[in-house]
C-alpha cells in the first residue's frame, strides 16, 4: 500500500506523452497550481514539471575522436586551435576541458587577464560548425609511426564528440561578496571592494535540484535537455554533497548535490553551449540544461512548488576567506531578495549581480515543455537515483 494518494509510474507518464495527453508545466508555473489546488490535486493534473539552468559551469568538457591519419599516429599531445587537450587516452581520442586557456594567452600576467579564447570556445566553435585546427604530436611506435599531424576538423566530420561534464547543475551555491579594499576578479565575476556588490549564480526556483531536493527522480538515465540536444544524467557529479545543512523545506543552505551529465555534441546548438571569459579568472562554458521532473505523487508536486523565497544562499567573502580556505558565512539571503536587485547587508543596500541567466533558463524550460508536449521527448527512468548519503 503506497503512502501517497496519487501514484504514477514513468511508463504511465510516457504513455500520456505518446498519446499527447500529457500535462507539462514549468517550475515557475507549478508554484501557483500547487498553491491553488493543493499538492494532491496538482499531482493528479500535472505529469511533468520542467526545470532549467543556463550559467557558466566549469567542470565541463568534451571527448573527441578525431580519426586516424596515414601514416597512423598515437597522439600523445593534442592542441585544438592552440588550446591543449588531454591526449593520454588512446591513439586519436582526446578530452578538451572547458577551462583550458590557449597557449599564447598571457593569463593573468597582464592583470586582470581577459582570457579571450580557451576550451569552452573550442567546444562552442565545433557546435557552431566552424573548422577547428588540430595539431597532434606522437612519439612513434611500430603500429603508429607518425610523429605529428595538423588538420582542420569540423564536428560533422568527427565520428564521436561527446560533451561530458563531471559537475553541473549545482544545488545551491554561494553568494559572493568582497570585504577587502580592492576590486577582485573571481569565478563569481567582478567583486567591488567593501561589499560593493553581491554576486550569485543559480536559477533559483527553476533550478533542477531545488525541485527534487532529495533526488527522488534524478539519477543514471534521466533524460535531459543538454545544450539544445538530448543528454543524460549519468552519475552524481563531483563534489556531490547530499548531507549539506537543509532548511525545513529540505532545501540545502550551502552547496549540495551535483549532476554528472553527458550528451552528443552533434545534437547541440551554439546558442545553448557558449564559451565564456571571466575577467581575471579564466575560461568557462555556459551550459544550457533542462531537467524534467516527473510528478509521480503529491510529494513531488509539493517539492516542485518551491519558490525563490524558500531558497537561502549563504553569503561568502571572496576577498579573504575563500582564498584562504576559511569556511565561514555572513548570513543568508533568499533567492527572492537576490533576484530583486539589492540585498540589505550590515544595514547597507548592496546591489546584486547574477551570473546565471534566468531569462535563458526560462526559455529552456519552455523548450523542454514543448518537446514533451509534442511527443519528441520521453522521460528516462533512472536505473538508480543520486546518492542521498
Amino acid at each position, binding site marked *: 500500500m503506497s503512502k501517497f494518494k496519487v501514484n504514477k509510474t514513468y511508463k504511465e507518464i510516457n504513455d500520456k506523452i505518446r498519446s499527447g495527453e500529457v500535462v507539462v508545466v514549468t517550475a515557475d508555473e507549478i508554484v501557483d497550481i500547487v498553491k491553488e489546488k493543493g499538492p494532491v490535486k496538482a499531482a493528479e493534473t500535472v505529469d511533468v514539471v520542467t526545470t532549467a539552468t*543556463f*550559467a*557558466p559551469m566549469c567542470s565541463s568538457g568534451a571527448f573527441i575522436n578525431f580519426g586516424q591519419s596515414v601514416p597512423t599516429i598515437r597522439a600523445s599531445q593534442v592542441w585544438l586551435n592552440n588550446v591543449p587537450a588531454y591526449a593520454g587516452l588512446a591513439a586519436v581520442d582526446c578530452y578538451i576541458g572547458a577551462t583550458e586557456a590557449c597557449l599564447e594567452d598571457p593569463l593573468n600576467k597582464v592583470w*586582470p587577464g*581577459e582570457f*579571450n579564447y580557451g576550451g569552452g570556445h573550442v567546444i562552442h566553435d565545433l557546435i557552431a560548425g566552424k573548422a577547428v585546427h588540430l595539431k597532434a604530436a606522437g612519439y612513434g611506435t611500430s603500429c603508429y609511426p607518425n610523429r605529428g599531424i595538423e588538420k582542420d576538423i569540423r564536428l560533422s566530420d568527427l565520428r564521436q564528440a561527446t560533451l561530458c561534464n563531471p559537475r553541473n547543475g549545482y544545488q545551491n551555491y554561494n553568494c559572493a561578496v568582497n570585504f577587502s579594499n580592492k576590486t577582485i576578479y573571481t569565478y563569481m*565575476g*567582478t*567583486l*567591488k571592494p567593501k561589499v560593493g*556588490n553581491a*554576486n550569485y549564480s543559480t536559477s533559483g526556483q527553476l533550478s533542477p535540484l531545488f525541485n527534487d531536493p532529495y533526488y527522488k527522480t534524478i539519477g543514471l538515465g534521466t533524460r535531459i535537455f543538454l545544450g539544445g540536444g538530448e543528454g543524460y544524467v549519468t552519475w552524481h557529479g563531483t563534489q556531490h554533497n547530499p548531507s549539506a545543512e537543509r532548511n525545513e523545506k529540505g532545501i540545502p543552505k550551502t552547496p549540495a548535490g551535483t549532476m554528472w551529465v553527458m550528451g552528443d555534441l552533434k545534437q547541440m546548438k551554439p546558442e545553448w553551449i*557558449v*564559451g*565564456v*571569459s*571571466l*575577467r581575471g579568472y579564466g575560461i*568557462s562554458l*555556459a551550459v544550457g540544461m533542462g531537467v524534467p521532473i516527473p510528478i509521480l505523487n503529491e510529494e513531488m508536486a509539493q517539492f516542485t512548488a518551491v519558490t525563490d523565497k524558500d531558497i537561502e544562499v549563504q553569503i561568502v567573502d571572496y576577498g579573504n576567506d575563500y582564498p584562504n580556505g576559511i569556511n565561514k558565512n555572513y548570513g543568508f539571503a533568499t533567492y527572492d531578495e537576490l*533576484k*530583486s*536587485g539589492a540585498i540589505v547587508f550590515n544595514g547597507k543596500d548592496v*546591489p546584486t*549581480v*547574477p*551570473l*546565471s*541567466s*534566468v*531569462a*535563458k533558463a*526560462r526559455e529552456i524550460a519552455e523548450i523542454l515543455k514543448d518537446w514533451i508536449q509534442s511527443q519528441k521527448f520521453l522521460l528516462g527512468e533512472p536505473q538508480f537515483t543520486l546518492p542521498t548519503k
Partner: protein
Amino acid sequence: MYSKLLILHFPGREVEKPVVCHLTKYYDLTFNILKATILPRKEGIMVLELSGSKKNFKKAVQYLKDQGVIVKNASQEITRDEDKCIHCGACTAVCPTGALAISRPDMYVRFDKTKCSVCELCIATCLTRAMKAEPTTETLFE
C-alpha cells in the same frame, strides 16, 4: 601601448606648421592619418590614430594644444551584439550609470545607450564578449 583616435582642428594660421611630424620626433609616437582636409577658409581637419606610451601621448596632446590645435577625442559608442549576449547580468556589476541593467520580472539585461558613458568597463567584463566600442564618426572616414 596606448592608442586613441583623435580629431584635430587646425585654425587657418596654423596649417603650415609640421606639428604632426613633431609627435614622432619629440614624443616617440606613431600616427596613422585616417583623414586630412583643408577647408575653404584654410582651417584644416585631421583624423589620426595616435599610439605610444600613455605618458607621451598626454604630453603630445598638450603640445598640440599649445600650438593652437583643437584636439577632440573621436567619439566612440558602445554596442551590444544581440546574438552573443546570454543575458547573464555579469556586466551590471561594473556599469556605473545603470545603462546595463536587469529588467524585472523578465530578467533580461537591457542596454540603454542614452545612459551609457562609454567607460568601456563592460567590454572585458562581458562573459561572451558581446560588448564593443565602435567609433561614431564613421562618416568622417568615407
